[in-house]
């Protein structure tokens, strides 16, 4: 099925040669330099990479050893990856914004003797931890600025390495040697080691092999029908599996062009200039973009605003149906066509989405509103679920089968099963061969029969057959009657309402689920202003009966959507309350990255939690607070509790 593998290219360097032969004159890479887009074709790329490879060899890089790549999305760093692979060595990309200690850990753990780095900043960072890296011999760098006066006994500009290699390549014997080296690499050789970001403990080096990576990429390239005519903008971290997969691996497999932004800060305008056809963005980026558009619209003239909101409304009603190829009335199609000329087209143009054929988002739960907004204006935005250990894809939504709350069915050739504890486990063509130098950890995540444990809990949606990811397995609890209780899943559903800023769901080892909510002062405050609700403080607004009524509707809505899944129907919210103060990192209730600290909250709000479960209608609470200047005070309040009626389990209809 996959023509690329059939072509006999089981390693990335061989793919590069194939691309130079088949797509020789087509662009492989673009980079904006001094304000002008520079282009390298596949054959030029092969040329540079061959010279670079010989240059690295002459510096002493050997087959099988690791070479660190530290920096942003720049052609020379991508070529570094290619050249290292061409030598049969293993590139180890490291996040450019890693602090010196993290960098030192990875470089030491991977035992690198050589590093290819972007600029003075990275050189300085590595030099500052030199003592921890006795094995590091040499760094090559891309950007020369500021490095002129450094001691060059252990430093070289990448340009010089390439030039040196090019001169050596003039000798036919060297060229023949290089051809031999390329031929000597096998598909089963490791192609890269990607270090996980380490949110759960120290980071681990995920070893991927050539043939598995290529096979996985070939599957998704076919799945999304990517060809050499596509273009992608590489703006996410080079060391992240997403960039390595979506741009590097898919680019080499399909022959599409990868564009590198001028600088990390220009990605937005570069996106617009390049007009990619394949695009990936994490939900947060999509949200920022939308917010920017909405803020700008508020400054627009009255007529423009009216037109904008009218057609966005029309898109909301019909846009997704049209994108999904469902049948819609002719008038709606006509309206959408006019909207496309007046609003959606120009809007997509401004955002750089005009030519996007396939767009993905992943990483965290995406709000249904946000998701359908982009789909309604005609952007084919889809969700995928993946991990570094799988070399990204585990599931992806096929065109025409898109639901905001699922991540799609298993990708081609991927086998997924749900373990008894609700954990998603998979077996995939691209799965990793192990953690670098860490067999115990490898054994921990692999089942005896060869599946990888994701650590995520999920289930297959009955109606669609798509996978739903609900929470990390270790956070998922159980109600006393045995119903699964995924707190984050419920909290996320609540937080998608703009009025709800934060939610804490309780239910593990309890009889039923309850939640504590935080209102969003901006959203609820503006609602209060519009509805003549008078309030003197946050506490007063939070306790207002009308606010309770409004949030009750939101909770009921969440219950309805929970009731649609048989697995989740038992985890409906029975009682809720609105907290009298905002959860605050200064008080230790949430982390600086805004993650709820459950244990701490359970302790601090114990009287409220008791009241939620003993049937009282209200409860008194007094909590200590820390002011911005460090002084401490206390807030006491009487908090009301609302009961909810469970939604009927048989409720039908499309998921919210």
């Amino acid at each position: 099925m996959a023509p690329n593998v059939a072509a006999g290219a089981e390693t990335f360097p061989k793919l590069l040669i194939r691309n130079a032969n088949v797509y020789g004159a087509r662009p492989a890479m673009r980079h904006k330099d001094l304000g002008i887009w520079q282009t390298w074709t596949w054959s030029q790329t092969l040329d540079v990479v061959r010279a670079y490879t010989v240059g690295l060899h002459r510096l002493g890089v050997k087959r099988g050893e690791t070479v660190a790549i530290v920096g942003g999305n720049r052609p020379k760093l991508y070529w570094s990856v290619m050249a290292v692979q061409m030598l049969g060595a293993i590139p180890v990309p490291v996040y450019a914004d890693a602090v010196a200690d993290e960098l030192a850990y990875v470089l030491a753990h991977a035992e690198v003797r050589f590093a290819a780095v972007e600029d003075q900043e990275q050189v300085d960072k590595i030099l500052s931890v030199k003592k921890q890296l006795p094995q590091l011999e040499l760094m090559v760098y891309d950007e020369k600025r500021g490095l002129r006066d450094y001691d060059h006994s252990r430093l070289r500009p990448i340009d010089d390495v390439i030039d040196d290699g090019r001169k050596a390549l003039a000798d036919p014997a060297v060229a023949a040697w290089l051809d031999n080296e390329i031929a000597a690499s096998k598909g089963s050789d490791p192609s890269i080691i990607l270090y996980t970001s380490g949110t759960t403990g120290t980071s681990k080096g995920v070893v991927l092999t050539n043939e598995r990576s290529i096979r996985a990429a070939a599957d998704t390239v076919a799945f999304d029908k990517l060809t050499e005519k596509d273009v992608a903008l590489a703006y996410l971290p080079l060391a992240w599996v997403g960039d390595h997969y979506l741009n590097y691996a898919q680019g080499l497999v399909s022959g599409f062009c990868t564009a590198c932004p001028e600088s990390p800060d220009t990605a937005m305008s570069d996106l617009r200039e390049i007009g990619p056809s394949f695009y990936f963005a994490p939900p947060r980026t999509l949200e920022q973009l939308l917010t920017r558009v909405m803020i700008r619209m508020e400054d627009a003239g009255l007529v423009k605003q009216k037109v904008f909101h009218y057609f966005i409304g029309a898109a909301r009603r019909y846009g997704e149906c049209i994108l999904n190829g469902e049948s819609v009335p002719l008038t709606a199609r006509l309206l959408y066509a006019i909207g496309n000329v007046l609003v959606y087209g120009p809007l997509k143009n401004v955002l750089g989405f005009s030519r996007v054929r396939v767009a993905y988002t992943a990483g965290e739960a995406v709000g249904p509103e946000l998701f359908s907004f982009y789909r309604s204006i005609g952007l084919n935005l889809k969700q995928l679920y993946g991990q570094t250990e799988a070399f990204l894809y585990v599931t992806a939504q096929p065109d025409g089968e898109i639901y905001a709350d699922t991540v799609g069915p298993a990708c081609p050739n991927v086998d997924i099963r749900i373990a008894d504890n609700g954990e998603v486990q998979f077996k995939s063509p691209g799965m990793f061969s192990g953690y670098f130098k860490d067999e115990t950890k490898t054994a921990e995540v692999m089942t005896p029969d060869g599946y990888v444990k994701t650590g995520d809990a999920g289930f297959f949606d009955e109606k669609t057959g798509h996978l739903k990811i609900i929470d990390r397995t270790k956070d998922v609890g159980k109600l006393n009657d045995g119903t699964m209780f995924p707190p984050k899943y419920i909290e996320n559903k609540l937080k998608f309402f703009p009025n709800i800023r934060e939610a804490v769901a309780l239910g593990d080892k309890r009889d039923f689920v309850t939640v504590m909510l935080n209102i969003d002062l901006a959203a609820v405050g503006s609602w209060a202003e519009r509805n003549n609700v008078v309030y003197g403080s946050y506490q007063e607004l939070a306790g207002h009966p009308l606010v309770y009524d409004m949030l009750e509707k939101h909770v009921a809505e969440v219950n309805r959507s929970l009731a649609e899944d048989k697995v989740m129907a038992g985890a409906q919210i029975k009682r809720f309350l609105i907290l009298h103060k905002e959860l605050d990192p200064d008080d230790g209730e949430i982390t600086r990255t805004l993650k709820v600290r459950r244990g701490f909250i359970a302790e601090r709000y114990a009287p409220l939690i008791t009241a939620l479960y003993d049937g009282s209608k209200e409860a008194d609470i007094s909590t200590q607070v820390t002011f911005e200047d460090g002084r401490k005070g206390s807030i006491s309040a009487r908090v009301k509790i609302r009961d909810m009626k469970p939604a009927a389990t048989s409720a039908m209809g499309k998921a919210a």
Partner: protein
Amino acid sequence: MRATGGPDVAVGDVLLSVENVSLSFGGVKAVSDVSFDIRKGEIRAIIGPNGAGKTSMLNIINGFYHPQKGRIRFKGQARARMRPHDAAYGGIARTFQNVALFRGMTVLDNIMAGRTLKMHSNFFWQLLRYGPAMREEVEHRHRVEEIIDFLKIQEIRRVPVGRLPYGLQKRVELGRALAMEPELLLLDEPMAGMNLEEKEDMSRFVLDVNDHYGTTIALIEHDMGVVMDLSDRVVVLDHGIKIADGTPDEVKRNQAVIDAYLGVAH
């Protein structure tokens, strides 16, 4: 950094010397009988308490003020009176204490404006934006893009300067001065009003300019940490009189300087 690695550029001959210069406005003596020199390739700081005559000194070097006494020798040529455009043609560029950019114009246009003196095609061709004028513009744009790259301001290339935060405006102003490819760059409080991070960035740029373009730099700055880190030599003024001149370490130990800054017990 400089403190450990020694001077980056070989500090050479005297580029500019100020000889017994005095300037007064009516009865107010701004500068009296000051002499010092600036050598090729060095970073020279002029410091002093408020009202010491630092900016006046810079304005004299720049040719904006004409000293009543004394003379300035630039690249070996002595002149008593120099006008700002003479200074500009001669290779002296400057930035200002209060940002002085064209606020309605984009960053790109502001820096392009710094190239004006280097444009030679005649008015007719420039009007048509064709032929030699076009070739010239492309060439100048290339230099400007190099500066934009150097100062890492690509993302604001097309943004009107008025919409930028203060720290970035300062950087754009430095860019415009660099566009003149000056031999001597005068910086009037380049770090004023900046936060720590912006100051560190700016210090890095000042060092890089000195290192990369080999530009001689004279700067006025209040942040003593910055001055001591950046400069090769420091001249200290107080009430228009030179009270010390030497390396940062020498100046730091100088009793007259300590008295001027901290006051003397009477």
